[in-house]
């Protein structure tokens, strides 16, 4: 390799440290209340629900029902919509056709301390059969009876869309919350007939399975396919009803198969502890490397900082628009392992340089040979870890991800179950190894070759050799 110029060291150091600092702090601008993220920092990391707390549910269609892939997708779409209405935007929803499952995960919102997870799960899974029935006759158990049982006016699929609105609906001009229904063509005639018949006389009841969720009076005949349900709604109850009606178009019922929730207070403590120990460990490792290897130790610290920055950037997405990745406890294990491998790469090289110096090589020769000879060991070690990472991402990732497709011929015997936590391990390990190639091998080589030409570093002692006076 050609000689590397002196300024290269400073250029690599400045770029690496700048990149790492940015990946930690990020850049945001503030215009009034609007925060504008230019570069995403550590506070933009999406912590997994095992750290931050949250909900993890697996739904499956009611027993005996084998839903088609389209049906599952439709159900998942409904769930996404519901999550957004619950003001949860940070969710993951996967469908798994092979095992007939829908997996939903979402963390708590920032600052959330009192969230009723049970009702949220119930509301998500509450994709029951929606019916509009005549009158509101009920038996002692609250189930439909008499004419209400017999006369079904509309079914879920007849409703195109329901939405909660706020505004004046009658002549008084008083604004209130109401639910607006847009009917599909299939339901227009039936609804028009029924409302003409019942206007001013009776009510229409709306049912979720055998549970009545509303029984509005019919004030006038509705023939244009747009109906309004009003009366004593709050924003919340109006949105909830609209949401239930929208979700009611589902072709089947869903049951919860697995679920877990973790309280947010348990989460933040774990997160803070993890960050603190990461900082302390990094400082200690740096001290250890510098004491042990002197100049190569300093180079190693810069390279490690770059590697950490690379992993953080891969987790946050760095620039807006790039996808961020959820970090779980196994994900942190992946970070630890890849930093371990990164430290190892630097130690292997530094040991090799030391060895060459001791065997009497010149400083330039030792640095050149050190990197050259250390490379094959580092390469093979890293590649085996890439193999591990890819297998994990394929086995435990979303069923439609690139890695899962790659491994499909081998894993076809096993239903695709998404285990987000372990997927995260694979991801952090993979990006950690890539970052190690970039910083631990290439950046560190250029820094070392450049810095070794500085006059003050022409002494073998700074490479771990004996003092040459």
């Amino acid at each position: 390799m050609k000689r590397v110029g002196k300024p290269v060291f400073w250029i690599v150091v400045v770029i690496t440290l700048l990149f790492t600092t940015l990946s930690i702090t990020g850049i945001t601008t503030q215009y009034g209340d609007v925060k504008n993220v230019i570069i995403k920092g550590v506070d933009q990391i999406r912590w997994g629900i095992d750290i931050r707390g949250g909900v993890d549910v697996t739904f499956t269609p009611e027993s005996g029902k084998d839903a088609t892939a389209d049906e599952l997708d439709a159900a998942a779409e409904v769930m996404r919509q519901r999550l957004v209405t619950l003001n949860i935007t940070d969710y993951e929803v996967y469908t798994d056709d092979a095992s007939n499952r829908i997996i939903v995960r979402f963390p708590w919102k920032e600052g959330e301390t009192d969230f009723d997870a049970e009702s949220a799960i119930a509301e998500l899974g509450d994709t029951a059969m929606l019916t509009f029935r005549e009158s509101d006759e009920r038996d002692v158990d609250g189930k439909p009876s008499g004419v209400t049982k017999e006369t079904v006016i509309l079914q879920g699929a007849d409703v195109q869309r329901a939405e909660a609105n706020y505004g004046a609906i009658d002549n008084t001009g008083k604004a209130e919350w109401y639910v607006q229904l847009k009917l599909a063509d299939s339901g227009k005639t039936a609804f028009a007939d029924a409302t003409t018949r019942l206007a001013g006389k009776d009510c229409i009841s709306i049912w979720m399975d055998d549970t009545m969720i509303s029984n509005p009076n019919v004030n006038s005949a509705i023939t244009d396919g747009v109906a309004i349900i009003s009366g004593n709604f709050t924003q919340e109850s109006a949105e909830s009803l609209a949401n239930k009606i929208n979700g009611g178009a589902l072709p089947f019922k869903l049951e919860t198969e697995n679920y877990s929730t973790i309280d947010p207070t348990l989460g933040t403590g774990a997160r803070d502890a993890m960050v603190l120990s990461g900082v302390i460990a990094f400082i200690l490792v740096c001290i250890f490397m510098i004491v042990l290897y002197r100049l190569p130790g300093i180079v190693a610290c810069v390279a490690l900082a770059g590697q950490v920055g690379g992993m953080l950037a891969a987790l946050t997405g760095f620039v807006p628009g790039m996808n961020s990745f959820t970090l779980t406890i196994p994900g942190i294990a992946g970070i630890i392992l890849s930093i371990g491998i990164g430290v190892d790469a630097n130690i292997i090289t530094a040991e090799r340089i030391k060895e060459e110096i001791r065997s009497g090589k010149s400083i330039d020769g030792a640095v050149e040979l050190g990197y050259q000879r250390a490379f094959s060991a580092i390469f093979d070690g890293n590649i085996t870890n890439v193999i591990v990472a890819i297998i994990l991402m394929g086995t435990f990732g979303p069923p439609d991800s690139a890695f899962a497709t790659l491994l499909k011929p081998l894993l076809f015997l096993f239903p695709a179950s998404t285990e987000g936590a372990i997927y995260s391990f694979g991801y952090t390990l993979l990006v950690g190894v890539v970052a190690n190639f970039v910083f631990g091998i290439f950046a560190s080589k250029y820094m070392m070759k450049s810095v070794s030409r500085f006059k003050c570093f022409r002494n073998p002692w700074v490479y771990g050799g004996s003092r040459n006076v």
Partner: protein
Amino acid sequence: MFKMKHKEIGFVKNRKKFFIFSTVLMLAIIISSFVFGVDLDIRFKGGTMVDYSYAGEQGAVDLEQVSEIASDVLGSNLTVEEKFNKLTNQNGFEITLVDNDGVSSEVQGDLTDKLQEIFADQDIKQLSITSVNPTMGKEFFIKCMVAVLFGSLLMILYIGIRFRKIGGVSAGFMAVVALLHDVMVVFGTFVVFRMPLDDSFIAVVLTILGYSINSTIVIYDRIRENKRLYGSTKSLGEVVNISVNQTLARSVNTSVATILSMVVVCIVALIFGVNSILSFAFPIIMGLISGAYSSVCLASELWVTWKEKREKA
């Protein structure tokens, strides 16, 4: 720290001692797994586990009463345990229900409502819940095993190709044997400290697999290089011993650096009382020690034994 002098340590010469030590260790782990029993987390075997916190002194909530209420709502076969949470500094209890099909969220909500109603003064709060269907737990477990198995096969294959000059596949196989040793040590740590095998176990095993194979490969790489250097002037045992010694400083220093970091994590987790991290960081330390030991003292020594046996035959 560790300075290499000209003296060589006879790793290959003393390999029998290492083999005996490891065999005894493995036997001890297997025996203790029978003595202590292997506790699978409900993530794998299915069941439900709910954690609650309550205000006031320990014992302010009568656990027997809780047990009765929970039995009414969830069915029998459950245990209730006192559990102090260091993180939130609150007393609490944990209800565990095994051998069931998972509890639906509605039923779970009923239980919480009932407990809150009866112990109104204690401000009962649900901290976490895990409810797993047994078939899904089993599937997850099998999948983990398949991933590990498949990963091992690919590693043997990769080492086989990259190290074909020194008889790769058998070297790869011995590297995997050393990995198995490390997995057993991690397993033993969980068994001896009575920690249920859960997803931290899987995370630890994966981390150790990656770490240990990396260490072994560094040594194999040196063997590959020295084989080229010495050709047939030195016996295989000698070449391996030289290689292990030459890489010893690296093995020790890397282990010190990684173990040091994990000790920091452990101490911080202890101070903050974060059990989820502690139950992960501590077994990793044991695995790292085992990984360093198995790479230096087992993998290439086993391989020498294998090769020598083959030559004699």
